[in-house]
């Protein structure tokens, strides 16, 4: 357990001191290294530019031997993200058969960002959006931009339950700002 925390702490330190492009990381609860809140800026020259997307990264207890779970807390119009409040995302390296314990979270987050730059319509979670992406790009871009305006402007809201938990922790343990936590 201790050694796993050593690995996670090291990754967190790396991610906060030299974060991947467009990415900021916070811990909603300082004492829980297994839940990260990530804010991802919509990459320039994409339909997502100008949006701020919240990602929730959950590390299983046996991380890094099992893959982390990444979900979108902000609604996004994208072929590879479920168009619902769950925000599940399909990412190759996170599948059990592909996951390697040496894979770093920074790399995973970069892969999520790459997915916004280049959606993968051939491996979709939303088949309809994937079809639209392939066949009617203008319509897709219009819809994606409309989602950005509607959901991804202003400060990122992570889901209500997590927010409540974090608020509870703050109330109990004082201000939740630690060395490893960077406010966007």
């Amino acid at each position: 357990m201790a050694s796993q925390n050593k690995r996670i702490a090291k990754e967190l330190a790396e991610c906060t001191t030299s974060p991947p492009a467009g990415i900021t990381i916070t811990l909603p609860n300082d004492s829980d290294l297994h839940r990260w809140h990530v804010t991802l800026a919509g990459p320039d020259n994409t339909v997502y530019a100008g949006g701020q997307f919240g990602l929730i990264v959950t590390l299983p207890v046996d991380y890094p031997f099992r893959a982390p779970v990444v979900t979108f807390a902000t609604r996004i119009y994208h072929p590879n993200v479920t168009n619902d409040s769950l925000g599940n995302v399909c990412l190759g390296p996170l599948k059990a058969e592909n996951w390697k314990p040496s894979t770093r979270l920074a790399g995973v987050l970069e892969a999520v960002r790459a997915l916004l730059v280049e959606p993968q319509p051939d491996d979709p979670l939303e088949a309809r959006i994937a079809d639209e992406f392939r066949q009617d790009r203008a319509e897709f871009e219009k819809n994606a931009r409309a989602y950005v305006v509607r959901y991804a402007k202003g400060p990122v809201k992570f889901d209500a339950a997590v927010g409540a938990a974090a608020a509870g922790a703050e109330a109990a343990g004082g201000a939740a700002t630690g060395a490893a936590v960077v406010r966007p």
Partner: protein
Amino acid sequence: MDTDDDFMSNLSSEDDMLPDDSDNDVSGDEDFGFDDEPDVYIDSQKDIGQRKKTPFDVSYKVFQPQDVQKQQDELIDEVNMILTIAKEEAAILLRYFRWNKERLIEQYMDRPSQVLEAAGLAQTTAGPPKLRTIPGFTCDICCEDEPGLQSFALKCGHRYCVDCYHQYLSQKIKGEGEAARIQCPAEGCTLIIDARSLDLLVTSELTERYHELLHRTYVEDKETLKWCPAPDCQNAVECRVKKKDLDQVVPTVACLCGYRFCFGCILNDHQPAPCQLVKKWLKKCADDSETANWISANTKECPKCNSTIEKNGGCNHMTCRKCKHEFCWMCMGLWSEHGTSWYNCNRFEEKSGTDARDAQAKSRVSLERYLHYYNRYANHEQSARLDKDIYHKTEKKMVLLQKESGMSWIEVQYLNSASQALQMCRQTLMWTYAFAFYLKRNNLTEIFEDNQKDLEMAVEALSEMFEKPIAELADPKLKVEIMDKTSYCNKRRVILLDDTAQNLADGAWSFNIEFMNSTSNSGPST
């Protein structure tokens, strides 16, 4: 399954890499080159020749665990000799090539280094695997760097501490059930961990599970082999019927343990209905379970006096205890009409379909039609169970009877044969109704329904005799009648299955739905 698919696509991309490879049809092709594989099991061909008698029989062979192990060992030894590589490597290569020895040897002869790399056996010089302690080493997985940390690396040189290796392997083996294709833990490294390295890194308990999984992959990798699905049975069955043939044949096999199952879909024997119809039927029944629930109930009301009647045997000939009315449990019609030329209990009269003009009436007719077939399907399923109960009860009584009547155990075995015939025939009858539900009427359906009727009448008659009180069963005359009826039932079953299987093979049936195998190749099957 995901891993399998990925594996297949790996292999196919590998094929693209090797351009002058003559047969490029590996991935997605169900045959996977088994056709050109010379027959390893020559003696099985003899068995098959003897066994194949009727159109509905498929040839197959049952292997016990030691046979399965021996086959693997022989293949590994052969590759080890021919290619002069270590046995561990031969095993990894064979698994990579899904145990297609010829293909492996051919490709290895052509370009050994590419084959080794593709299979995760990058070639560098290395002795036997061993643990090492390296000064200044930091494990990249757990970030530990304490002095004296024991570590291990495969030929690729990606080094991790023993603890991390242990956890990684335990997650793969215990958590994911993976064995044959566990890669080096380094990101992007495809080198596969061989059995000897693994033995060095994990506890004996994990090693055991690992070898068990390896053993299983041999059967799972081969399209011609399947595990017997019976609980606690460790046998494997070999059958050469391919996936794409499943719309033409219902490959039913019987394991040495006595379990009869379909090689195509691993479900219980479902002749004469083809796998895809069975799948559709079961889904429909599950979706409509509410509607159909009342049918499978054990009690119904007497159609004449409305008193409640409970069914406690397999026989469908019911006699109301109160008013003595005799009726059929399935159609609730007069029993006296059954067994005469008036008998049409098994046939659904489509007449009302033409009268139905509005959508509501049409949907009622289609529901009635479904209920007609479902009713009979569920009924035979239930009757098979009840017949079995009766047999178990009877079996006990027969022990007593032996003492009184002086009959020997051998002499009462006719009841066992009758019981088995009832189970088997009911199982077949049950699926004839699912089959008939999807059948479009043509000149063949009449013959089918006649066969179904004949079998059903024979089964009901046998079932009725079988339920007679013990005292009557001891009568030698009834014994002869039961024996005759038993063999008659078995004969009728064979006739029905022969006819349906032959028409299926000839493509002579027409169905009211599309049920062609979605995974099948569209070309003519051979």
